[in-house]
């Protein structure tokens, strides 16, 4: 078995809104991400997948629970060690327009991490920037230009170069291709895949486009209203989804093939409930076609129903 690079133990992130109201954005997630894999995380908007990603990177502190990096609780590390973790655990954001400072030159944007961690200076720093730009498929001549001079796909490449600058080991990619055009998405996805091999990276890939997630991921976790619903390897998830929510989610993806007559699509009724007031018991029960009495009484346990296939559903208990 691979060694886990990241482990989360019952992570919860709650946000207070107004008096006595809590948004349970992430509500108890325990997973392990193995060294060298791409872990896909899917879910609808409001399912807490981005918050979960930010918690792992340390951009927000979990309300409860702990993040383990390479076997040790990040919170218990010394200042110096924490700094190392901060460097090795990085994030790529969705919107390259908003995540690059419009007043900074590309070279300086990329070097920000290098400067902050004191990794290189002077000539070395410059060479490192050139090298990074080349590695993400851009011409090194662009160092003096500004973000607005680039297209969305190029900006995302700059964002990736900035992330790579500090030699990370683990990267959370938070919807890195959602803002891009179809023909550009494949370019960036290929780039991420190549870099994973050449830089020896591990990814947590967050997205809502299921076909892209399937393509890039080794294992996929499905989130709904802050909880993990199912987790298994990507082929298995698509071939034999166990959780009714996964089944509905997969069947909702339109297939680009007109010769396939529309499969028996499970069209879920209604909207996802508000995370302020999630249903008691199983959170999915209000939209679940298989809801039983027990579903409203007790939250299903997170269980390994087959080897390396986890789900939280009373149908399998």
């Amino acid at each position, binding site marked *: 078995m691979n060694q886990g690079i990241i482990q989360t133990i019952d992570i919860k992130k709650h946000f207070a809104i107004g008096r006595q109201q809590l948004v349970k954005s992430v509500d108890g997630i325990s997973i392990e991400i193995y060294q060298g894999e791409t872990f896909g995380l899917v879910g*609808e*908007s409001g399912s807490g997948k981005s918050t979960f990603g930010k918690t792992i990177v340390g951009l927000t502190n979990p309300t409860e629970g702990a993040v383990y990096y390479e076997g040790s609780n990040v919170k218990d590390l010394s200042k110096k060690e924490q700094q190392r973790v901060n460097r090795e655990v990085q994030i790529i954001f969705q919107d390259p327009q908003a995540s690059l400072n419009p007043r900074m030159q590309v070279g300086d944007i990329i070097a920000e991490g290098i400067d902050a961690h004191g990794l290189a200076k002077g000539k070395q720093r410059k060479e490192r920037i050139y090298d990074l730009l080349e590695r993400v498929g851009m011409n090194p001549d662009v160092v003096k230009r500004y973000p607005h001079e680039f*297209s969305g*796909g*190029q900006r995302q490449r700059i964002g990736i170069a900035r992330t790579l600058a500090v030699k990370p080991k683990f990267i959370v990619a938070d919807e890195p291709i959602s803002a891009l*055009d*179809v*023909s*550009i*998405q*494949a*370019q960036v*996805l*290929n780039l991420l*895949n190549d870099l994973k091999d050449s830089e020896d990276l591990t990814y947590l890939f967050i997205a*809502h486009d*299921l*076909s*892209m997630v*399937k*393509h890039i991921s080794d294992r996929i976790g499905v989130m709904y209203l802050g909880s993990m619903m199912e987790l298994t390897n990507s*082929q298995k998830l*698509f071939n034999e989804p166990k959780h009714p929510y996964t089944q*509905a*989610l997969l*069947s*909702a*993806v*339109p*297939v*680009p*093939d*007109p*010769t396939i007559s*529309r499969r028996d*699509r499970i*069209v*879920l009724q209604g*909207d*996802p409930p508000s995370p302020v007031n999630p249903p008691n018991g199983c959170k999915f029960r209000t939209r679940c076609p298989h809801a039983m009495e027990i579903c409203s009484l007790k939250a299903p346990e997170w269980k390994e129903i087959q080897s390396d296939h986890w789900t939280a559903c009373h149908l399998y208990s």
Partner: protein
Amino acid sequence: MSLLEVNNLKVNFKTYGGTVDAVRGVSFNVNHGETVAIVGESGSGKSVTVQAIMGLIAHPAGNVQGGSIRFKGKELLKLNKKQMREIKGKQMSMIFQDSMTSLNPTMQVGKQISEGLIYHQNVSKREAKVRAIEMLKEVGIPNADKRYEQYPHEFSGGMRQRVMIAIALACNPDLLIADEPTTALDVTIQAQVLELLQDIQEKKDTSIILITHDLGVVAEGADKVIVMYGGMMVEKCSVHELFSNPNHPYTWGLLESIPNVYHEKKERLKPIEGSPPDLFSPPKGCPFAPRCKYAMNICMEEVPDLYDIAEGHSSRCFLNDELAPKIAEFSDAEELV
């Protein structure tokens, strides 16, 4: 006679950076009860095309430079504002992508539906309210009576999109234009909205122009497809032809760049290299030539005409010329999808 006939439509915009030819010669027909999908990337001119049909091109920056748009045989480009108002919202209407910015946030949603009814169908306020509540029920909004009095922010994204559909369909239009109606929605909600549109089309025989960039949505919902690139229509065909016999290299590229969910093996994606053209200075020849693997010298110099491939299938590519070399690579397109 087709419901809508668009012929050689050209639209440009004058900006501080220069003139942008957003649409450069688009022609297509929409028949009764048919769904025509327009696919293309951002900046390909798909939204501007339908905005021109709806008469929504903002003057004086935007100008319809030429061509004709005939709706039920009537030339829309010659109508004045008042005449156009008789058609807009009544005989053809539009659903926009972002329902949050398209609905009036300070107005009850029910009033936004009855507004059109009172204007176009000359009904009393009370009657309009009854009809609006019926519409809300029809698009699948529970508690329609109560929802009538609520404001857009009290609705979820999927529900707001349903409200938009209710507004668009209130006067029973013959043509519904949906500009990326599901792009902002989650997949499970997208499935609901697409199903709703199809149900309504079956019931009322409405024609739909559907703008999207999701080829899955195209495959499931459209009869005909128009592929746009750099302001031009590069391919036009039936949905089956698009997937089984695509002709234009850009269409090939699009089909190749999406991963196949049903393939066990993970193959490397084949993206279209390069980026879309800068519309301030579009390439002299074919807009796709700089990114095209098969580009010939002539492609850089001249814009190709539309070549007829088969009945109802045309493609703007020089490879279809008698003198062009034949490309075998794509003869087995079936395997791709």
